[in-house]
C-alpha cells in the first residue's frame, strides 16, 4: 500500500506541481492568474493522443508538436483574455476573461475530440517495469524535475530568463530600462502553454486524453500555488508533491469523496496559518 501511495501520490503531485508552475509563469509577467492553466494540461493529453495515436507520429515529434500547439494556445490566451484586461487589473476582470476562454477550450475539445476519455499511448517501450515502477508513475516526476531545472537555468543563466525575472520583479522599471515587456509577456505565455501541456503529456497514461481533466487540473493545480506562495516555483513543486501524497494517502484511508474534503480542509488550515503560503514571503508595505 505504501508503494502505491508513494508512486501515484508523487505522480499526480508532479502533475499538479507542473500546473502550478504554469500558473506562476503566466502570473510572473502579467500579474494575472490565468484559469486556462488546467485546460493547457488537459490539452497536453489530448494533443499527445491526437498526434501519436491518431496521426501515428513517433513520440518525440508528437511531444514537440504538442508543446508547440499548447504554446500557441498560451499566446492566444495572452492576446484574447489577458491583454485586454491588463489596464484594469484591480477590477480582476481577468477572472472572467480567462475562465471564459478556459470554458471555450473545454467545450471545443468536447465537441471536436470526444466527451469520453480516449486512450493515451505508452511513451516508452519498457516491458519490465510494473506496479509502482510503471512509467506512468515516474514520467510526470521526471518531467517535473526537468522543468524546474530548466526554469532555474533559464532564469539564472540566460539573458532572456533574466529579462523575465526583471519584468516579474517590476514591469514598469523593466520597461523603463528598454526591455520589450509586451514581447516577454507573450513569450512567457507560450512557455506556460508548453509547461502545462508537458504536465498533461507526461501524465497522459494516468489521466487519459479526456476533456474533463481541465477543471480538475485547474483546481488541484492552484493549490500548490497557494501553498507554495504565488510566483514561487520551488514552493509549487513542494506543495504539489505534498498535495499528491496527501491526497493519495487520504484516498487509501478515507476514500474518494472524503479525500477531496480532507485535501481542502488541510488547504484552508494551512492558509489560515500562513496566508502568504508556506514558502511565500510576507507582503512588504511600501512607506
Amino acid at each position, binding site marked *: *500500500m505504501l508503494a*502505491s501511495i508513494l508512486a*501515484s501520490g508523487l*505522480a*499526480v503531485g508532479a502533475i499538479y506541481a507542473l500546473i502550478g508552475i504554469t500558473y506562476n509563469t503566466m502570473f510572473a509577467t502579467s500579474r494575472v492568474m490565468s484559469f486556462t492553466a488546467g485546460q493547457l494540461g488537459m490539452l497536453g493529453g489530448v494533443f499527445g493522443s491526437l498526434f501519436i495515436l491518431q496521426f501515428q507520429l513517433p513520440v518525440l515529434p508528437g511531444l514537440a508538436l504538442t508543446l508547440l500547439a499548447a504554446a500557441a494556445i498560451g499566446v492566444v490566451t495572452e492576446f484574447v483574455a489577458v491583454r485586454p484586461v491588463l489596464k484594469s487589473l484591480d477590477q480582476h476582470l481577468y477572472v472572467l476573461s480567462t475562465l471564459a476562454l478556459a470554458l471555450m477550450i473545454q467545450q471545443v475539445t*468536447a465537441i471536436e475530440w470526444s*466527451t*469520453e*476519455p*480516449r*486512450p493515451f499511448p505508452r511513451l516508452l517501450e519498457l516491458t519490465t517495469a*510494473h*506496479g509502482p515502477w510503471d512509467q506512468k508513475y515516474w514520467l510526470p516526476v521526471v518531467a517535473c524535475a526537468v522543468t524546474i531545472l530548466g526554469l532555474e537555468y533559464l532564469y539564472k543563466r540566460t539573458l532572456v530568463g533574466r529579462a523575465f525575472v526583471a519584468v516579474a520583479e517590476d514591469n514598469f522599471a523593466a520597461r523603463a530600462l528598454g526591455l520589450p515587456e509586451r514581447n516577454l509577456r507573450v513569450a512567457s505565455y507560450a512557455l506556460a502553454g508548453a509547461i502545462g501541456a508537458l504536465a498533461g503529456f507526461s*501524465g497522459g497514461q*494516468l*489521466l*487519459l486524453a*479526456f476533456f*474533463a*481533466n481541465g477543471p*480538475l487540473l485547474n483546481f488541484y493545480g492552484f493549490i500548490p500555488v497557494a501553498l507554495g506562495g504565488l510566483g514561487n516555483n520551488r514552493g509549487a513543486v513542494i506543495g504539489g508533491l505534498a498535495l499528491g501524497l496527501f491526497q*493519495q494517502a487520504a*484516498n*487509501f484511508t478515507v*476514500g*474518494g*469523496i472524503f479525500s*477531496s474534503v480532507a485535501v481542502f480542509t488541510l488547504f484552508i488550515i494551512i492558509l489560515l496559518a500562513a496566508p502568504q503560503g508556506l514558502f511565500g514571503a510576507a507582503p512588504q508595505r511600501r512607506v
Partner: protein
Amino acid sequence: MRITRRDLSRATLAGLAAAPLARPALAQTEAVRIGWLAAMTGPSSAPAIGFNRGVLFAANALNADGGVKGRKIEIITRDTQGDPTKAVNATQEMISQAKVHAIWGPTNSGESLAVTAIMARAKMPNIHPCVVDQLIDTRRYPNAFRTAPSNGQWDDAVRAYCLNVLKVRKVAVIGDTTGYGVSAVKASVAAFQKDGAEVVYQANIDATQPDMTPDMLRARNAGTEAIIIWSVSTGMEARLFNTRGNMGWDVPFVGHPSMASGEIGGLLSRPANWEKVFAIGYKSCSYGADGNLPAKSQELVSRLQGKVALDDTLLWWVAAGVDAVNLIAGAVEATGSSSNEAIIRHWNSLTKHAGYFGTYSFTPDEHNGYPTEEVVMSAANTAKHGAFALAPGYG
C-alpha cells in the same frame, strides 16, 4: 355575373356550415405526425443516432407499404443536443405548431425530466426509453409510457444475476459522483441488503480520479465476491478493470451497460482485463450459446441488412427506435384515430405486445412496459454487429 355582398355572405355561411363535415375526411388523409426528440448532436448523441436509424427505417417501411390506413407516417425530428432547455422548446413547438399526434423521446433522463410535465399538460401521447424511475407515474403523467427498463428493473436484473447465477453473497457497490451515480449506489445497496446480501464495501468515485487502487484494495480486503458498477464513465470503468488486472484479482464486475461500450476497449492495458465483466443487456439483442440472436431479432437484422449500419451502434437502440414508430402506428391502425385519447387508450390495453426490442405490456396503472425477465447480463467484451453474447449462466 355580378357578385353581390349578399351572395358573398351566403357563400361564406355555407362554407362554414360545411366545414365540420369536411374535417373527418381531412383526418383520414393527413399524415400521422410523430415528434422525435433526438439528441442527435452533443455529448450524449450516440444512443439517439442509433434510435434514429430505427425510427427512419420503420417509417420508411410503413410508408412503402402504403402507410397506416392510407395515412403516411411523418417523422418530425428536433435535435435537442442533450440540452433540457432545447428539449423544452422543441416539445412546445411540436405540440403547439407542428401539432404532432405522439412524441417519441427524449432519450435521456435529464431532458425527459424537463419535458414530461409539459407533455402531460397537453395530454400528448409519449413513449420514451429513459431509465429514471420517477418519469413514469400514471397518476401525474397518464400520457407517458416507457418502452425500456427503468433503473429499478436494471437493479433487479443485476441483483438477480449476482445472487442467483453467480451465487455471491458479499458485494461491493461502486458508482461515480454524479447525481445518477450517488442515487443508483444508494438504491442498489438498499436492495441488496433487503435481499439478504452483504454489502461489504460501497463508494462513489470521482470519474477523473487517476488511480483506482485504493478503492479496489479496500473492496478486496473487505472480502468482495462481485463488484457492482453504477456509472456511465467509461474512463473510470476502464481504470477499475485495469486495476483489477494489475492486482491479479479475478472478481467479476456486474452492472451498467456502459461497461460494454466500445470505447473501453481502447483504454484497457490488456484485452484480458475485460474478461468477467457483465454489463446489462437485453435478451432480444443477445447471442445465445448457439451464437444466434432470437428469431425475431434475426428477422429484423436481416431486414436491416444493407440499409442500416449496425457496426457502430447498438442493436437495441435501433430495435427500440423501430418499436417506437410501430407502437404509434399500431395505435392509429387499431383505433382508426390519431387522437390523443385513442392512442393512449390503445397503449393502455397492450398485453405482451411483441416488438423487436421487447414484449411490451401496459395497463392504466402500469406504464413500465418492458418485462424485467428480458433484462439479462451480457459478456461486455463480445460486441458483434451491435449485440452481445449472453453472460455465462443463462440456460
